[in-house]
């Protein structure tokens, strides 16, 4: 039986987005004669690495992946359905390559299961539902359906007249990416798709020998009712409310409310206020869109991969609400706490935003004993795309704090290199940077 000897992690330059290839090399041939296994985690972008760069880069990245995997992809993990994580599947040339790579296992969040829509009995959806898959409850199913419906509404906002550019861009980030999802559904056919929630078997172990894959998130509504409630009030309320808000704003867009000649409000203070309130509309839409953004981020798979003496944490864009499910287990599960404290590689959550790397995790890493190999963090991000000041992505304080506890590699520091490659012995970390050898002339 062959055992893993080395692990290689490549972070591709996709601009603002995530695309990671985890390759495990073995000391001998596996049953199919190959000596390696490949796990691709996300394949998306929402902004190119630099302004003015062509959007077609994802095809180039796909070609690189094909080369790096030797044409066979074992596992595809799509953490959640934001376009900075799956946009590549929409690009024709890239999609073609993905079909060729034909992953044996496609892992997505429980909210993405196409069977859910058949079992949903939520508002406006088909009656007489069948039993939901994976032991999910109706509440979970409804939540997923509502999330999809809300996402569709948000798409409408992009057509709203007079909206602030930044807010419009934020709304565009919520677009449904229907083509990408269709391709993923296609790749998931013949029982290759797996829709996971916290604690569920991912199936990765069966395809990649010697790996222990632990799904820490996302929790379902049954596992953590706060997912749907967001707060203590009756379930689904906030998402229903969000959906309804978007409907009202969206239908105002349909009616072209802004196109009509503005009514005169006289020269007095009313005029002054109504002029100013245009900003408040943008703020309001921005908040609603951000709520949806948060909700979708929180459907992210949090994956802990352990290979022999190495461990890697890939949390997608999971925010605190998703993490909370795991964090609350830590006081009672010293074993899990040790495993999280001792990781060798951390894929920085949500491109380095302020609320995706829980401080309590950082506290664990700060308290690492000296005998542990140095922690390595990788962040795929681009400055100046999202947020300012407190909401800046990546958040400088977080980046500084990560540098305090380990080595940090960021796509933001790349020149024209197309990826960053790290490797480590399977027996023990740390990960080392593999210098990029440029092809000769």
């Amino acid at each position, binding site marked *: 039986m062959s055992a893993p000897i080395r692990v290689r992690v490549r972070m591709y330059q996709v601009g603002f987005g995530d695309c990671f290839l985890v390759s495990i090399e073995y000391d001998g041939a596996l049953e199919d004669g190959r000596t390696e296994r490949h796990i691709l985690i996300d394949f998306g972008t929402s902004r190119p690495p630099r302004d003015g760069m062509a959007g077609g880069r994802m095809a180039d990245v796909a070609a690189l992946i094909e080369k790096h995997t030797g044409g066979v992809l074992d596992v595809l993990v799509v953490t959640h359905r934001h376009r900075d994580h799956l946009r590549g599947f929409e690009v024709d040339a890239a999609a073609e390559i993905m079909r060729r790579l034909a992953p044996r296992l496609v892992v997505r969040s429980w909210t993405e299961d196409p069977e859910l829509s058949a079992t949903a009995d939520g508002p406006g959806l088909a009656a007489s539902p069948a039993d939901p898959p994976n032991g999910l409850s109706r509440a979970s199913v409804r939540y997923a359906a509502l999330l999809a419906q809300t996402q569709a509404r948000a798409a409408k906002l992009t057509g709203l007249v007079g909206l602030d550019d930044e807010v419009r861009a934020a709304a565009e980030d919520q677009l449904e990416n229907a083509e990408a999802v269709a391709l993923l559904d296609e790749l998931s056919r013949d029982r290759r798709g797996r829709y996971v929630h916290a604690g569920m078997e991912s199936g990765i172990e069966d395809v990649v020998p010697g790996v222990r894959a632990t799904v820490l998130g996302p929790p379902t509504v049954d596992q953590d009712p706060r997912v749907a409630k967001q707060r203590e009030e009756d379930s689904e309320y906030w998402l229903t409310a969000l959906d309804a808000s978007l*409907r009202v704003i969206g239908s105002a867009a349909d009616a072209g*409310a*802004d196109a009509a000649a503005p009514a005169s*409000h006289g020269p007095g203070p009313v005029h002054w*206020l109504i002029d100013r309130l245009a900003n*408040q509309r943008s703020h309001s839409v921005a908040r609603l869109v951000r709520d949806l953004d948060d909700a979708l981020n929180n459907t992210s798979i949090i994956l802990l991969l352990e290979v022999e003496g190495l461990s890697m944490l890939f949390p997608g864009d999971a*925010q*605190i609400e998703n993490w909370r499910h795991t964090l609350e287990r830590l006081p009672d599960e010293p074993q899990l706490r040790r495993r999280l404290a001792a990781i060798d590689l951390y894929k920085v959550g949500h491109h380095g935003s302020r609320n995706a790397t829980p401080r309590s995790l950082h506290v664990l890493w700060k308290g690492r004993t000296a005998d542990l190999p140095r922690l390595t963090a990788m962040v795929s991000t681009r400055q100046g795309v999202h947020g300012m000041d407190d909401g800046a992505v990546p958040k400088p304080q977080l980046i500084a704090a990560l540098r*305090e506890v380990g080595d940090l590699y960021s796509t933001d520091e790349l020149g024209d290199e197309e990826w960053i490659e790290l490797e480590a012995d399977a027996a023990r970390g740390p990960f080392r940077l593999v210098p990029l050898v440029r092809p000769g002339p």
Partner: protein
Amino acid sequence: MTDGIEFAEPADEPRTHVTLRLVAQDPTVSGDDGRILTARVKVPWSRMEDGPRGARLHVVDYDTATGRYIKHAPLGKEDLYADAADDVLRTDPTFHAQHVYATAARTLALFETALGRRLPWGFRSHQLFLVPHAFAEANAYYSFEDRALLFGYVPPPDPGGDTIYTCLSHDVVVHETTHAVLDGLRSRFLEPSLPDQAAFHEGFADIVALLSVFSMRTVIEQALGKPDRSGRIPRSRVRPEALQKSMLARVAEQIGSVLTQGRGALRESALRPPPSDWAKQTAFLEPHRRGEVLVAIAFDLLIGIWVKRLDALFSGPNANAEGARGITVDRARAAEEGAKAATQLLTMLVRGLDYLPPVEFDFGDLLNAVLLADNEVVPDDDLGYRTLLHDRFTRAGIQRSTARVTDVLKSELPPHYLGINFAGLRSDRDEVFRFLWQNARRLDVDTEYYTVIESVLPTQRIGPDGLIVPESIATYVQMAEMTAREFTEQSGLELSRVIDPRTPVQLFGGGTLIFDQFGRLKLHIHKPLDDWRRQQRRLDHLAATGHLDAKQRLGFSSGAARGQTFAELHRTEQSSGEEW
């Protein structure tokens, strides 16, 4: 009418107050008769224009989501909704406009009455805009830039369903109005600070909302439960534990239920005592959660005062107390005492506001201020309210204030008044500055730092002999700018390692000066700028919670560009303590 003078207003128009019907909590709470629980309250009245628009408040019913604008008629002396059906109250935008106007007006009046003067808004206008249907979103907040309170509404899941309006929730409107009033009183409380200061805005707004709800008798009556045929309820229902429980369950749990993501309102959890180690928990760094510590104290105090007042209703309260079965109390009377207790406590707390330092607030300052103010008005404390207050704050683990309070009249080195104009000390910032300058050493104010008088306000209160006592309250602020390295050199204190030594930092200090009716300085409430330990805690806290500004500076005044402070504040809670 003769030639010459023409009176624009008809003589029979109401001059000071009108009585209007308000939704007592929110439209989901119903009374004995199954209809929406409402209360008739006296609302201050001024000459009215379309909007409605009065001297201090201006309703602008503009919906940013749909572009709809409705200009409502002025409020008249007759309440058009005195007998309106529930459906009308729920859906008629004109009632919504009246409701938001009346609730805000009542709240402002409450502050003005307690402080004995008119209160300015925090912006340069006399009229605060009220926008009852501002956006299709479960949110409501005070927008400083727009000089407005914005109230959202939540459309129903199905287009045919019922919309939920935040402007119909009494506590939401009071909470937001309080933000606006506080901003006018202590504009620096929004500066980057230690966590208590940010928590104060939320906590105090919640307290005013809570006590305002309780000051309506109908609400308490409902919460006390159904009476017997003669309108009486068993005494067991008004025992402290029973009151605590029923008021929590039947009043507080309803409060704030309309806002989900936005926390413009009180949550039921606020009224439960905080864990004893709250000050050490990161969750309590979040302003709302931290503010709830104050709310829990206020609720506890309310029950305490109410119980004291109820005692008088029982003849021989100690006689056979254990076997007091069968003893009943009139529900309306018991409720009235509760409403009075709420009003009394609210007045007591609001009166303290003038005695707060203008910057660098901590929770202990509130206790100090309320005790000082109450001592002026009720020197005897024969009902033991001050003891109660002190007890409840200490029990909640609130530390002593870091402010230095000096009873100047008793100090060994009294200030000089030579060349100071008595009348100027009541109204003129420059005159007060001159006073401060002359007496800087005696008041221990280091004028090496930039120093500015921020406000000088005359105030009046009723003295213990029942006569009116005119006083004046002035606040001054000090600021210093340096780098983190210079801070360490100056103070001899090390800052957290996450602060780069080159980081520019801004420090605040200041004080409140209370002059008596002779223009003599009576009290000095001082937050010295050179309290380096406090400054160190503040900078470390701001760095740890990621408050560097866009220019990578720490602790700098956000000035007038406070942006969406409140809109954001009402949303941040969920990831409490885990964010960067």
